[in-house]
């Protein structure tokens, strides 16, 4: 494959030459050459540790690159770049956390660059509001400028963050995982908005783990692996598997579930489960050793349903049965007692205590197992249990003592899975288990899930990524607007078809 030439014959708006960065002994970025032209949407992909964030930190002045690295913006060479200087040169990042001021109004957030600089200078409220109104009108967005940002939806907050960059005359807009918290509809709105910005001459650098989105929005795609650049390609030359191959350096076979007969033993069943305003009349059946998918857009009620099964969101009506017997799941303690485990979507915030050691994280769901003779926790038992989790799940960790924070996303996810498996659950609910995990590490997690099913655990796998469902689940439910449809055999589906069904572009009958 030939690397794509820049579109037209334009001079690049930003170029990075011979970018190197060492962190201690680690060579994080190796002689990377990178450039962007005006008005393009350029995607940057690579696994964690591939150097994406180091490259971004160099052009935004957050880290200082090694000697010999050159950064040019609009033809001028920038030396000793600081975050403030990068902003002055029009290089803006919309971080995943958006970096807004939640207590200030939309107008103030958009105009906040006016506050940079020193002194007791006066600020004009009229000037602030006029600047904000001008930007919002130009970009044709509907936002209440006087509202505090904390009162907006995440998608609207993201628009505020983009407007802020535009208000301070961004030349290059770097979007870091911008769709992670958006619904499908909101993602589409964001994309059309980004295209509009590109037409106005802003260069957008789009960073995402979601390869489908990369292919949809990107004109060119730059791929990094192990700190080095693999190449820059025109998006139309690529497909999903090709990108994965270039990112990981390995051939990938799209793993589809093997031939499969449905197990017999029922573990979990719901009958007419309803929580008004979240989900309605949910009836599903989960059997021992089965991996059942549950896919639907964000906001369809997936997570709410999962929380109800785990006792954290009591339903208004309907019944839950475990092994055929009706049960009450009023608290998560009930759920654990009944053998139901839950792996939350946001594992970092809800699944792990990041500043505790790996071993403490593995034992936290069942301290009874590690009690010693006097009912105190026994450090030796604790270490043994933690080590067995690390071995069984092939966690790459420098021992059990370091803090969980030190692990990569994929390995953190394995720890969370492992701690639930230690409680010998009958049923595990996994909410987006490979979300934000590297392509390479996804395979490892998939193996773990298969292993769980082989051990007889019933798995409910919740996701909003079609590929994740198709690769893991022989059967899947579709959730839309709080209602369940299916189950459907995934062997008969492909991503396009499944996506159409989720969006209701295609009738659900298969």
């Amino acid at each position, binding site marked *: 494959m030939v690397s794509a030439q820049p579109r037209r014959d334009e001079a690049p708006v930003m170029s990075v030459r011979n970018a190197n960065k060492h962190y201690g002994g680690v060579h994080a970025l190796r002689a990377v050459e990178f450039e962007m032209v005006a008005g393009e949407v350029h995607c940057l992909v690579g696994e964690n540790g591939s150097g994406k964030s180091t490259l971004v930190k160099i052009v935004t002045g957050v880290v200082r690159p090694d000697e010999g690295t050159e950064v040019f913006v609009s033809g001028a060479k920038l030396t000793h770049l600081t975050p403030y200087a990068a902003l002055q040169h029009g290089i803006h990042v919309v971080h995943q*956390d958006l970096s807004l001021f939640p207590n200030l109004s939309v107008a103030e957030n958009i105009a906040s660059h006016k506050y940079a600089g020193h002194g007791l200078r006066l600020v004009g409220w009229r000037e602030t509001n006029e600047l904000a109104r001008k930007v919002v009108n130009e970009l044709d967005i509907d936002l209440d400028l006087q509202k505090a940002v904390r009162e907006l939806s995440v998608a609207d907050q993201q628009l505020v963050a983009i407007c802020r960059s535009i208000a301070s005359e961004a030349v290059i807009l770097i979007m870091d995982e911008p769709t992670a918290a958006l619904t499908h509809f909101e993602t589409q709105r964001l994309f059309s908005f980004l295209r509009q910005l590109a037409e106005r001459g802003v260069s957008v650098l789009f960073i995402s783990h979601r390869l489908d989105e990369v292919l949809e929005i990107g004109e060119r795609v730059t791929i990094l692996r192990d700190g080095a650049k693999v190449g820059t390609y025109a998006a139309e030359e690529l497909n999903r598997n090709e990108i994965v191959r270039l990112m990981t350096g390995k051939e990938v076979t799209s793993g589809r579930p093997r031939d499969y007969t449905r197990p017999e033993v029922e573990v979990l069943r719901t009958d007419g489960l309803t929580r008004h305003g979240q989900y309605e009349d949910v009836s599903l059946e989960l059997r021992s050793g089965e991996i059942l998918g549950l896919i639907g857009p964000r906001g369809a009620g997936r997570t709410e349903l999962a929380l109800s099964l785990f006792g954290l969101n009591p339903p208004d009506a309907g019944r839950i049965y475990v092994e055929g017997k009706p049960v009450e799941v009023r608290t998560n303690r009930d759920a654990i007692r009944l053998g139901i485990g839950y792996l939350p979507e946001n594992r970092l915030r809800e699944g792990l205590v990041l500043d505790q050691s790996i071993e403490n994280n593995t034992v936290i769901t069942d301290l009874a197992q590690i009690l010693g003779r006097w009912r105190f926790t026994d450090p030796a038992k604790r270490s043994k249990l933690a080590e067995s989790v690390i071995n069984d799940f092939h966690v790459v960790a420098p021992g059990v003592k370091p803090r969980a924070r030190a692990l990569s996303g994929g390995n953190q996810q394995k720890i969370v899975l492992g701690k639930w498996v230690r409680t010998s659950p009958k049923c595990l609910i996994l909410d987006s288990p490979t979300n934000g995990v590297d392509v390479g590490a996804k395979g490892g997690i998939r193996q773990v899930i298969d292993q769980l099913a082989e051990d007889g655990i019933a798995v409910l796998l919740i996701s909003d990524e079609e590929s994740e469902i198709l690769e893991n689940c022989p059967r899947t439910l579709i959730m839309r607007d709080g209602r369940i449809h299916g189950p459907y055999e995934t062997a008969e589906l492909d991503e396009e078809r499944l996506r159409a069904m989720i969006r209701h572009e295609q009738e659900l009958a298969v």
Partner: protein
Amino acid sequence: MKSSVWQRVLQTTEFYLILVIVLVGALISFLNPDFLSLQNLFDILRRNAFLGIFALGLLPVLISGGIDVSFTAVATIAQYIMALVITTHAVDSVLLAFLIPIPIGILLGAINAWIVTYTRVHPVIITIATLNAFHGLLVFITGGRWIYGFPASFADFARVQVFTVTDAAGRTLGMSVFILMWLLVAVLTWFVLQHTRIGRKIFAIGGNLEAARRSGFNIFRIHLFVYGFTGALAGIASFIHTAQNQMVEPNAIVGRELEVVAAVILGGASIFGGKGTVLGTVLGVFLIGMIRNGVILIGLSSYWHQVTFGFVIIVAASINAVQSQLRTRNPGISL
């Protein structure tokens, strides 16, 4: 849809504070009709002017997401040095007495800012430490000696009335100059917070410190300003306190930090930063002063002041918490 003015007013802490002030005021004047007089109103305001200025000094720190409990020690040092200069050198200048404490307050505040920024330890720890260190040093060096013997002009200044009125009973009563000073400091604080860059930056770092860093704000300068501001206002308050009492005693002010912190939080400032108003702060101080005054007028033991004080804080804080819960539970719903 835009919310109407009335709906916005209903959502403010100030509205509830005024409501509580009216209700509590009605209750006290029912028990003792003397409460409801212009004389008593002026009296409450005059007695609480120095606490009110402390509170205004604390407000920007709280908005910035920090806290300062060392201002009582700062004020004590400032007034002690001022008193030494005035009495030992027999300088007969009220203006100088007013001006001396301010730079001392700023200097000590700057020390707080420096430690807070560079150690990144929570400011409540730092300022508890500096409160003790500053106060301990003062008492150690001075031996805790009281200072009297201010020049006559000093006592005269404390009696200055901005204006006087004659009430129905024919008594002459006036508004003390200290009330005017409180008012002017309130206007100054409001102006800084609402209409200057640094003021908006204070709100910004209280809302999201990391975002402020990424926007290129110089965090140390902002800290320097807010803690310096607290110190400066502590200096002004210490001047008023000295003038009102005509003496300086190293243990007079220290110990009242939490009362001031409570007043500012009662006024709607958030302990987590990003939120707070000048009007709320003034009302918070007034409410606490009014309750103290009312308890005395009703003839209860002063311990009852502490009980009611605690009770009012719990109720006010709960209302605040419920309000913010209601807001976050319905995100994106426009009124």
